[in-house]
């Protein structure tokens, strides 16, 4: 008791300031780095959406408010791209997931040389997307590629022509390339999830009288559900932003039939050099994807709470 009063004095202001700022100073380098790398470009990019930025016009750069968004509301090419994006993303994710799941289920069964096959399956993922696009564009080209001739032989086509130049079929070209390219992602992630399922659950179920379909429905699917939800979410966002294959294979054509929002942004920014308008479109895409992600996250939460 005798010694305590001395300690009760408040420490000097400098000491208190130093103490209070200590945690901020320690974390400052990391925070500043993150802000510089992530936030600054984001904010600058968003600011473009409200400014008139045209690379070839030295007098541009002024604030235009919501003008870009008003123009966007009237832009039929944008709405066409939005529809194409839905089509492109939906079909790509659906087929990538379906084939990826089938492949994962096949690779989950032990067979001779499984290790090698598992490694090979991953290969398409390692191919640069531009190379994959060029490759598929050539495969579809009747002059050098075999595919149109095979289609004719199968009776799917009257004469060998390039589906990439057919307005009704063009979208299938990049979709096929994208499916080929993206199957490994689903196959590998789903395979990892499959292999985490305890084997004795299947044994218990087979003794309980469950056939292959019932085992799949009551064991495999519930175990895979969280992985399915998160991978489908990720792939959907990636694919709707993924313009490489389209730019390489069709460049949005013929007649904007394969133009998706991401490739439309690319066209606006790097061909018309209208960065302001491109940023406005990007902002709309960002908002749509955020809404979609929130929906999936909510869905996953309710699923996990139930499970």
């Amino acid at each position, binding site marked *: 008791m005798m010694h305590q009063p001395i300690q009760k004095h408040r420490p000097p202001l400098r000491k208190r300031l130093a103490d209070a700022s200590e945690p901020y100073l320690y974390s400052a380098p990391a925070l500043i780095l993150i802000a510089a790398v992530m936030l600054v470009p984001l904010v600058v990019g968003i600011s473009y959406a409200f400014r008139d930025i045209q690379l070839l016009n030295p007098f541009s750069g002024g604030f235009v408010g919501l003008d870009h968004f008003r123009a966007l509301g009237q832009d039929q090419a944008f709405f066409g791209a939005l529809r194409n994006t839905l089509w492109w993303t939906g079909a790509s994710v659906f087929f990538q997931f379906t084939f990826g799941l089938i492949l994962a289920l096949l690779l989950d069964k032990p067979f001779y040389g499984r290790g090698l096959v598992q490694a090979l399956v991953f290969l398409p993922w390692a191919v640069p997307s531009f190379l994959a696009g060029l490759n598929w564009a050539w495969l579809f080209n009747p002059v050098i590629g075999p595919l149109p001739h095979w289609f004719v032989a199968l009776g799917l086509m009257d004469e060998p022509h390039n589906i990439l130049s057919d307005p009704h079929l063009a979208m299938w070209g990049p979709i096929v390339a994208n499916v080929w390219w993206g199957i490994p992602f689903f196959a590998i992630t789903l395979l990892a999830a499959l292999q985490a399922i*305890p084997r*004795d*659950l299947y044994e*218990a179920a087979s*003794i309980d009288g469950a056939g292959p379909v019932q085992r799949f429905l009551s064991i495999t699917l519930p*175990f895979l559900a969280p992985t399915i939800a998160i991978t489908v979410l990720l792939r959907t966002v990636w694919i709707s932003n993924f313009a490489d294959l389209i730019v390489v294979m069709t460049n949005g054509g013929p007649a904007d039939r394969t133009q998706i929002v991401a490739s439309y942004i690319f066209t606006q920014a790097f061909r018309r050099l209208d960065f302001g308008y491109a940023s406005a479109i990007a902002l709309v895409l960002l908002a749509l994807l955020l809404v979609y992600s929130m929906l999936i996250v909510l869905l996953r939460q309710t699923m996990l709470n139930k499970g």
Partner: protein
Amino acid sequence: MASIDIESVRKSYGPFPVLHGVDLTIRDGEFIVLVGPSGCGKSTLLRMIAGLEEVTSGDIRISGNRVNDLAPKDRDIAMVFQSYALYPHMSVADNMSYSLRLRKTAKEKIASAVGGAAAKLGLEPLLERRPKALSGGQRQRVAMGRAIVRKPKAFLFDEPLSNLDARLREQMRAEIKKLHADLKATSIYVTHDQIEAMTLADRIVAMHGGVVQQVGSPLELYDTPANLFVAGFIGSPGMNFLEGRYVVPGEGKGAGIRLSDGTVVPVASRTGIGPDATVTLGIRPEHVVISDTGMLEASVDLVEPTGFGIILHLSLHGLPFKIFTLDREALSAGPTVRVDFPQKYLHVFDDKGDRVG
């Protein structure tokens, strides 16, 4: 309920044999325990009966019907796994009723079967929970409940208590025994724990290296082990073994076994071994008598009080040797003790390890 016949059943994985021809007849309602160290083939045999492993050769019959080529679900057996293998996405009630729902049993029947099993196992308050919200012992009970709702011909248990702590294991052991007395269903139980084997079994099947070593009641295996493996495996602390040579009776002296130091331990006369044959003498730690006039002297290495009794770790002729006694005086045993081996508790094994006499 059913009898199970296993006829010269073999199993190999590729060129590697795991089971070398097992013959076993399990009677209706019998509780059989397969016991042995890990890798002895006991689990493989159980999984073959369940239909989870293919039979390489030989026949398995349930109620006289050959089941080798039947799928597990068509064998009408239930299995309790070491990991319990409960379906994590289903409630306790759904776990228990899964097999009945797959068989499209009527709803009322399912409800009464699940209710009955839950009452027997004390699971009623837990029926709506998921497995992850249960303790180890409760999960174990659900796994048993899942097996009994179906009223199968036979129960198969694959080390069901290995994941529980010692106290819970003891409790569940008693419950399994009560359950069997109640249901009287043919049961095959795999364990490496000889206490479980001794306490639960009507008959024990001791296995080693893919070969059945001995089949018999727990006390048969304990009192007259067929070979060195069974003698050493059953009982804790394990049986003591001493090398020696057989001395045939004659010149007014009885038969005996001459140990390395020349001491002759008298044994009952045995047939089937020649004079001077190499033998192994076995005696259980609890049968060794400490006596000031004992014929052998051993040095005391370690005294282990277990509370229930005392284990003395000795060196006899330089080899480890154990005594178990209830006598607290053993706690103050000096640097050496003298011991005697009562004749009626001595086991003699020949040079191939088989019991003699």
